[in-house]
């Protein structure tokens, strides 16, 4: 259906306002209205009352778990957008790591900053602790929107999907990789029960020559970084670590560095992004 006249729109208006047009017709009305310079007072006249219809329905409480799903999916979305605060590790070890990250001494170059607890308490509540729920959300067949919007880059979305699938496995942990600098590269990673690690990052500079990015793991903030694997990055800025050699250690810290050559034994600073893996626990239930 194309090229509706104003009269056509007037005729279709009631159904349009009730969401009762077939999609093609609805699109045609929308297109007409977007381009039409004539007034269409019938929309207000007929449509002003439509929202009231919702008031005729008795509210019904949805299952409490739905909120966890939605908030976890929103949290994951925030993480996938990058640049946003990601992990607020509540543990003492993480706090120590955060404290040490404030001013890493020059003689302790192996210390890798872990994202400090932020003012966004909600992240602590809804962030990665809800990984299991997030997986349901992202993999849910109907949840096309989130998938398509995780990032414009298809490659990144595919890599994120892989991470999320890995995080769905029993015993897996999920980590949000927060950029060290605002606007820097970010992503998410999963540590499987067998210790293998899959990661997806976006916003990385393309590699050239022998350059690689290296993923590192640290059993604690003070531990020596152990390389898990290298990956290269193309012009899309998407990094994908398919099968890193990690460890299934609770709270494993993951970090990414840019290296001049493959298989480094110590990270070349600065660390670009890092985060702490967490088991998918049940999020706090707010009062």
């Amino acid at each position, binding site marked *: 259906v194309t090229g509706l006249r104003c009269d056509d729109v007037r005729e279709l208006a009631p159904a349009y*306002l009730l969401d009762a047009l077939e999609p093609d017709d609805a699109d045609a009305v929308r297109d007409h209205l977007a381009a039409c310079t004539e007034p269409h007072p019938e929309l207000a006249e007929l449509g002003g009352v439509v929202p009231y219809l919702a008031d*005729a329905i008795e509210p019904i409480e949805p299952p409490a778990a739905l909120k966890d799903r939605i908030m976890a999916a929103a949290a994951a*979305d925030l993480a996938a957008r990058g640049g946003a605060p990601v992990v607020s590790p509540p543990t003492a070890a993480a706090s120590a790591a955060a404290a040490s990250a404030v001013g890493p001494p020059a003689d302790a170059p192996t210390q890798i900053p872990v994202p400090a607890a932020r003012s966004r308490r909600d992240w602590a509540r809804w962030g990665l602790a809800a990984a299991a729920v997030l997986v349901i959300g992202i993999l849910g067949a109907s949840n096309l929107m989130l998938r398509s919007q995780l990032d414009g880059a298809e490659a990144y979305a595919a890599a994120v999907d892989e991470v999320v699938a890995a995080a769905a496995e029993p015993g897996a942990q999920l980590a949000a990789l927060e950029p060290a600098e605002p606007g820097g590269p970010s992503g998410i990673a999963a540590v499987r029960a067998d210790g293998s690690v899959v990661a997806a990052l976006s916003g990385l500079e393309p590699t050239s020559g022998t350059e690689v990015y290296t993923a590192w793991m640290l059993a604690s903030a003070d531990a020596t970084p152990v390389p898990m694997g290298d990956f290269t990055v193309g012009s899309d800025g998407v990094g994908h670590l398919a099968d890193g050699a990690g460890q299934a250690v609770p709270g494993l810290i993951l970090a990414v560095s840019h290296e001049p050559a493959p298989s480094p034994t110590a990270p070349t600073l600065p660390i670009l992004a890092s985060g702490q893996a967490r088991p998918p626990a049940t999020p706090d239930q707010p009062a």
Partner: protein
Amino acid sequence: MSEPGVPLPRRLPSSADDADRAALARVAAGELDALELLYDRYRAMAYAIALRITRDATLAEDVLQDAFLGAWRHADRYVDGRGSVKTWLLAIVHHRAIDAVRRRRPTTDLPEPEAPVATPAALVMPDIFAEVAGRLDAAAVRGALAELPGPQREALELAYFGGLSQTEVAERTGAPLGTVKSRMRLGLLSLRRILTGEGDAAVEGPT
């Protein structure tokens, strides 16, 4: 598009509107607790709408998730002055619920899964939403619906609550499409008159 902008007098005063707008602005800034606040405020209404249309608890949950994530991602598309946040949210829920049931029906063309979701009709509505965006109590709306001539009420209910397209309403009721269109139009006009107290109650039409 100009519009008459007649306020509905029975609108309940809603200082919640301002709080909602503030919350939505924080949602647009990526603040999760603001999303949580709006979810908690409207989840029961949203779920009731989704459940009514989909008649499927699982699908209704998916609808809510899609809708609230849509709001989360696109809070900046909310246009102040076009209605309340409540209206905006519930219109998204309604639209997505309809989408969900249409997708499930094999006779309807499936939208491309990754295609951007069209803006719900209600969201391109003119300013009257600003006037009417409050909340009527359920009894008032149900009473108004009950006052409608049966065929008009049926057409509105099948479309809005049943998720049927106007063509499907015609098939379901056995009425010609043109008649269904008239019933929807007259039903909406009647409802408006009843709720605003303007003029006579129902508009009798050719049924």
